[in-house]
């Protein structure tokens, strides 16, 4: 067995403790349980997802409205009550939160060209939490749109009998075209945006967690070896010190990647349970499929390879920086504070592109973001989808250069006195040390 394998095995054994495995398994389990229980809660609370309708008009129009609203996903429950207060107070509607009153004389008003009202009531409970109120608002918006369309059709049939109501409502419907890199396709922008977001929804979170996990691991590994003085024994051994650095970097990367996969599985199960994100993403892609392919938005194998390389170098950059921070750490307790110099650029490169359009951003912001090697990994899927392969390639080259600089610095620090004598005390670390 070669010495690198021996060192790597030792590093993995030291990092992959039973506590770590148990905590990750527990995290996946908690995500899974929350996702499942929220999903089943939503299904079980189907009663409160419906709309109770009091039809006081009992006309042809009100019958058409009920039928049109019933054609949507929201269950419509007709009620015999004649007043909103008595309906809300009724025990059989105790679990209901959404009510609609179709007023008496609605059909007559529409036929005579006088405006009328459909009254939607939403019961907002004092102890309401979770996504219930937001879902109720969305439900009422959809149902009221269906009812408005049907009432409009009813009025148009009577006022302009020779023309189809759909034409009268929207005689020049909008057609949406999306243009990417000179390619034009007729596809709603919402579908394209939805597809791009669905493809990159988990990606930045995964990269963020991989970077944080691996950075913490390597810093702990270095600081623990310093604190336990096991490092002094290793440094006095006839092993090339670059191998010691490399084995720690490799072991941390392997464990971080494995943990991130586990984390993503848990997160996917969680999100799937809550929003059915996976299904809606694939449905969106399927609907706009041919147009997305023609626009070049479907990522090819080469595209995935570029993204993978960018993520790999992002992790390696973070590991080499964290390695140096580990060398400078006072002890294991100070690691949280020592992570700050790494966390700040990571947060900037993760959050800023979410809120800022980099294509129109000022040079200062662009320079700041592109100087941070992590930004290139966060932007890689978008660059690849948009056909900016050169930008993705240059990003990887820049990340590789940053990694080379930091890993050389780490190896030099690891080979010199600094490893045992240099200490960086951040304000937070000092306070913690003083408290202890």
């Amino acid at each position, binding site marked *: *067995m070669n*010495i690198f394998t*021996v*060192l790597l*095995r*030792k590093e993995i*054994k*030291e990092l992959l*403790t039973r506590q770590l495995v148990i905590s990750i398994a527990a995290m996946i389990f908690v995500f899974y349980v929350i996702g499942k229980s929220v999903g089943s809660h939503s299904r079980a609370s189907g009663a409160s997802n419906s709309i109770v309708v009091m039809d006081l008009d009992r006309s042809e129009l009100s019958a058409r409205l009920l039928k049109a609203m019933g054609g949507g996903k929201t269950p419509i429950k007709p009620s015999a009550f004649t007043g909103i207060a008595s309906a809300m107070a009724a025990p059989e509607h105790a679990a209901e939160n959404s009510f609609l009153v179709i007023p008496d004389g609605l059909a007559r008003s529409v036929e005579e060209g006088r405006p009328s009202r459909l009254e939607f009531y939403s019961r907002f409970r004092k102890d309401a939490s979770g996504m219930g109120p937001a879902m109720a608002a969305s439900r009422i918006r959809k149902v009221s749109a269906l009812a408005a369309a049907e009432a409009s059709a009813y009025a148009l049939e009577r006022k302009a009998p020779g023309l189809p109501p759909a034409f009268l409502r929207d005689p020049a419907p909008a057609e949406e075209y999306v243009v990417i890199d000179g390619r034009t396709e007729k596809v709603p922008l919402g579908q394209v945006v939805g597809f791009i977001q669905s493809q990159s929804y988990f990606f930045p979170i995964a990269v963020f967690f991989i970077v944080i996990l691996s950075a913490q691991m390597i810093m702990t590994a270095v600081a623990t070896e310093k*604190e*336990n*003085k*096991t490092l*002094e*024994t*290793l*440094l*006095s*051994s*006839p*092993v*090339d010190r670059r191998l010691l650095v490399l084995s720690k970097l490799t072991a941390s990367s392997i464990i971080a990647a494995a943990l991130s996969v586990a984390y993503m599985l848990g997160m996917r199960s969680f999100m799937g349970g809550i929003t059915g994100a996976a299904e809606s993403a694939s449905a969106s892609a399927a609907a706009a499929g041919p147009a997305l392919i023609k626009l070049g938005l479907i990522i090819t194998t080469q595209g995935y390879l570029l993204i993978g390389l960018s993520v790999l170098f992002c992790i390696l950059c973070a590991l080499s920086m964290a390695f140096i921070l580990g060398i400078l750490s006072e002890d294991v307790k100070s690691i949280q504070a020592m992570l700050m110099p790494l966390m700040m650029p990571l947060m900037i490169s993760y959050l800023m592109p979410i809120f800022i359009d980099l294509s129109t951003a000022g040079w200062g912001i662009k320079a700041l973001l592109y100087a941070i090697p992590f930004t290139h990994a966060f932007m890689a899927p978008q660059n690849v989808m948009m056909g900016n392969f050169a930008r993705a390639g240059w990003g990887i080259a820049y990340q590789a250069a940053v990694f080379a600089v930091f890993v050389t610095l780490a190896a030099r620090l690891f080979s*010199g*006195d600094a490893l*045992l*004598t240099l200490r960086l005390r951040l304000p937070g670390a000092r306070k913690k040390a003083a408290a202890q």
Partner: protein
Amino acid sequence: MDALKISGLVKKYGDFEAVAGLDFSVREGEIFALVGPNGVGKSTTLKMISTILTPTAGAISVFGLDTVRDAHAVRGRISYLPEEAGAYKNLSGHEYLDFMAMVFLRDSRKAAEAAAYGARLSGLGPRLGDKIKTYSKGMARKLLLARAVMIRPRLAILDEPTSGLDIVNGYEIRKTIKELAAGGMTFLISSHNMTEIEFLSGRIGVINRGKLLACDAPAALKSQFSTEDLEEVFVRLTQ
């Protein structure tokens, strides 16, 4: 040939001079003890000999090899046991010895033999199968000592070798060191235990504030200070 030769050794940390011009040598097969109060540069000296720290000035030669210029070759001839050293807590005793034997010897067959020898030396028996985090301080120290000598280095550098050990275990370790020295292994030891120093070492180097105050056989030092007590020699030299 001298196993170790130190000339004009200086180590500075900023303005602080931890070692201030140290000169001494250790003969092959000798057990040499470096003694002195806390914080006078003993451990710094041992770290420089072990190639972990670089001297600010002066030179260290281990079997004729310079510790800065030929650091890698020096590391192939020494074994260093730091004071209060720990071991990898998630490895078992056996795994630790196997790992260290491979790291130092780089040959599977030699490493297996060394690890088996280390296992015997440690005296930990079946507990070697347990994780190191379950060991007492004394057990961990025995394991680390076994690790330090199992590879049969030409020069073993031991910083406080028996600290944390009970009387019986301390005695056994001292006996082992004597036996290994008789077999040709050279020892450089730092200790505060004067009884241990007197029992083990052929010569003693007393240092204070980074400088060598005296260097001779225990009997010669006692005679020089007209006392039968080595501790008295130490006190009179360092005060």
